[in-house]
C-alpha cells in the first residue's frame, strides 16, 4: 500500500512538472468544455468545428484541448479546474449549465481567461457570448406555420431557460402570423443530449398529431424519428444536419462560432482581451440559415429569405409589438421592439401558447 502511495505521489509530481512545462512555453493554450460528444452532429459539433478553425488559423502558436460530455453541475467545476491547472490561458465553457461553475473556477484562477456561452454572469476574467438564435427561430416558425397541415407543431425543449423560451416564443409568433390556427405542443426533455429520449419525444409529438418537429436539443435523433414516421418535417438545430436533406430536414439554424473564437484567441495572444458581452445574430454571421430545400413551396421560401435579409440588415426585429404575454397583459406596444435585457431574462410565453413554463 505504501509503495502504491509513493508511486501515486511520484506520478503526480511528474504530472505537475509536465503541467508547469506546458505553461512555460510560448504557445497559447485554449481549452474547451463541451456538454455533449463532438460527434453529436449539432451543438457540440459546431463548437468543435470552431476549435479546429482556431487551430487552422494560428497553427503552431496555439494549442487546443477539449473535454467532451461534461455534465452540467458540480462535476463541471472539476473539469474546468483541471483544464485551468493544465495551463490553459483561455477556456471556453460551451453550455448554459456551466455558468456558475465557470464563475467559481474563474475566481480561483484570476490569470486565466474564461468565455461562457449563452450565460449572463460576467467577471473581470469571464466574458459571455451567445448567438441570437431567436432570429433563426423566426424564419423556422414562418416555414413551419406555412407547411403544417395538422396545425400542430411539436417542440422539443431541453431546459426551461431564457434561451430556449425565446426560441419557442419567436417560432410561435411567426407561425401564428401566417397560420392563425397553429398550435404548439411543447415537451421538455430535461437533457441537451440523449438521442433515445429525443427520439421518444419526437415520436410522442408525432403520435399526438404534430407534422412539424422543432427541436432545441443537440442530436439529430428527432430528425431520424421524423424520417421514420414519414410525412413529417423538421429543421437542423445548431448545425446544418445536411444528411437529412433528402428526408425531413427542410432548413436549419447553423451556429458559426469560428470568427468569434478566432478573434478572442487572438485577443489573448496580443494581450488585448477584455471582459465582453457579445450577442450576435444573422447580420454578423454568428447565426446562419441552412439551405431551404425544395419541399418548401417557392413563395414560402422567398418570404423566408426576405425575412432573413430584413433581420440581417436590422430592418426587422422578430420581437416587434404589438405582442401580449400569455396571460393577455400587454408586453410590447405597436411598433415597440423588445429590449435585449427582457430577452436575456425571458421567462414567459407570449399570448396563444398553451401550458406553463416549468419553474
Amino acid at each position: 500500500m505504501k509503495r502504491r502511495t509513493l508511486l501515486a505521489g511520484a506520478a503526480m509530481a511528474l504530472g505537475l512538472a509536465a503541467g508547469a512545462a506546458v505553461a512555460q512555453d510560448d504557445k497559447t493554450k485554449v481549452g474547451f468544455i463541451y456538454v455533449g460528444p463532438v460527434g453529436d452532429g449539432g451543438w457540440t459539433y459546431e463548437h468543435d468545428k470552431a476549435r479546429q478553425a482556431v487551430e487552422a488559423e494560428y497553427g503552431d502558436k496555439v494549442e487546443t484541448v477539449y473535454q467532451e460530455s461534461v455534465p452540467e453541475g458540480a462535476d463541471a467545476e472539476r473539469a474546468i479546474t483541471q483544464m485551468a491547472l493544465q495551463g490553459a490561458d483561455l477556456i471556453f465553457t460551451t453550455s448554459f449549465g456551466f455558468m456558475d461553475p465557470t464563475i467559481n473556477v474563474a475566481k480561483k484562477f484570476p490569470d486565466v481567461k474564461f468565455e461562457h456561452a449563452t450565460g449572463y454572469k460576467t467577471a473581470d476574467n469571464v466574458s459571455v457570448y451567445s448567438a441570437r438564435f431567436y432570429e433563426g427561430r423566426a424564419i423556422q416558425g414562418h416555414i413551419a406555420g406555412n407547411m403544417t397541415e395538422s396545425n400542430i407543431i411539436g417542440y422539443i425543449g431541453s431546459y426551461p431557460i431564457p434561451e430556449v423560451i425565446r426560441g419557442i416564443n419567436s417560432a410561435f409568433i411567426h407561425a401564428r402570423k401566417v397560420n392563425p390556427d397553429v398550435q404548439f405542443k411543447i415537451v421538455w426533455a430535461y437533457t441537451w443530449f440523449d438521442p433515445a429520449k429525443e427520439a421518444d419525444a419526437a415520436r410522442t409529438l408525432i403520435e399526438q398529431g404534430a407534422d412539424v418537429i422543432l427541436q432545441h436539443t443537440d442530436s439529430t435523433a428527432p430528425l431520424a424519428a421524423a424520417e421514420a414516421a414519414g410525412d413529417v418535417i423538421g429543421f437542423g438545430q445548431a448545425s446544418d444536419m445536411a444528411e437529412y436533406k433528402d428526408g425531413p430536414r427542410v432548413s436549419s439554424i447553423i451556429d458559426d462560432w469560428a470568427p468569434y473564437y478566432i478573434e478572442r484567441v487572438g485577443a489573448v495572444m496580443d494581450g488585448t482581451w477584455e471582459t465582453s458581452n457579445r450577442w450576435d445574430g444573422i447580420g454578423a454571421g454568428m447565426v446562419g440559415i441552412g439551405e431551404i430545400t425544395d419541399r418548401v413551396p417557392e413563395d414560402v421560401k422567398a418570404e423566408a429569405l426576405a425575412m432573413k435579409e430584413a433581420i440581417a440588415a436590422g430592418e426587422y426585429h422578430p420581437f416587434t409589438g404589438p405582442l401580449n404575454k400569455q396571460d393577455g397583459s400587454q408586453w410590447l406596444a405597436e411598433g415597440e421592439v423588445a429590449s435585449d435585457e427582457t430577452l436575456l431574462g425571458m421567462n414567459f410565453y407570449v399570448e396563444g401558447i398553451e401550458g406553463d413554463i416549468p419553474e
Partner: protein
Amino acid sequence: MDLSAINPVLLIASLMVAATPLLLAAIGELVAERSGVLNLGVEGMMITGAVTGFAIAVETGSPLLGFVGAAAGGAALSFLFVILTQFALANQVASGLALTLFGLGLSALAGQRYVGIKPPPTPDLDIPILSDLPVVGPILFGHDPVLYFGIFLVAGVWALLKFTRAGLILRAVGENHDAAHALGYKVVRIRALAILFGGACAGLGGAYISLVRVPQWTEGMTAGVGWIALALVVFASWKPWRVLLGAYLFGGITVLQLNLQAAGVAIPVEYLAMSPYLITILVLVILSADKSRAPASLGRIFHASQ
C-alpha cells in the same frame, strides 16, 4: 389539457420499444452478477454493441446480422473484462469503469464513418390476422423480433436459474466461490461465460437503440442507459421478472410522461420528468421488502490458491 390526444395503443406499443434496450442490458448484467461478478462496464458494452450493430447492418443491409454482430461486439469487449478480472485478478469496479470509458472512446472512433447514415429498417413481425387485430394487434404482435427476444430471454434466464442444474451451479459460484471450487466447479470458466453473456446482451441492447429506437448512429448515444440498467438489477433484487417489471415501468413512465407533457396535463413538468426514476425505485424497493439480498460473493476476486 387534452387527454384524448394520447392514443393508449400507440402509447403501450412505444413504451415496449423504450423499455427493450434497458431490459436486454439489465438481464445480461443480472446473469453476470448472479455468478458473483460486478461489471460496471455495461454502458461501454452497450455503446460498442450500438456501433458494431449499426456498422454491420449498414454494410450487409441486414438488421439481423447487425444484431448478431452487436452481440459479438459487446461480448468481445466484455472479454477484455474477463481477462482483467478473471485472469489478471484486477479490481472489478476499476476494470468496469475502465471498460465504459474504453467502450465510449472506441465506439466514437469506429463510428466516425457512420454519422448521418440511415440503417436498413428492422421489419416488424407481420403475422397475418393476429397483427391486424384491433388494440391487441399493435401491442402484442406488431413489433420487431428483438423485442420479443428480450422477453423470451427474461423467461429463459428465470427458468435457467430456477430449474436447471446449470443455473444452480451459476448461483453457487456467485454465493460462495470457494465452496463451489471445492466441489470441483470451474469458477473462472463459469464466470467468464456469464460475463460474455452479459456483454452480448448489453451489445444487443445498444444495437436496439441505434437500429430501432432512434434509428441512427450518434456518438455517446446510449447516454447513460447502461448505468440505469446496473441500478435496475440491484433494485430488482437480482430477480429476472422484477427486471422485466422495472424496465417496463421505467420505459413506460418515460414515454407516458412525454405524452402527458405533450397533452398539456396540469402536473408540473419537473415531477413528470423525475417520475420514471421515482416510481421505478419505489415499486422495486417495496417489492424487495422480502428477504432478497445480493449474491454473497458479488465483486469478490477468486483465485484457486486462496
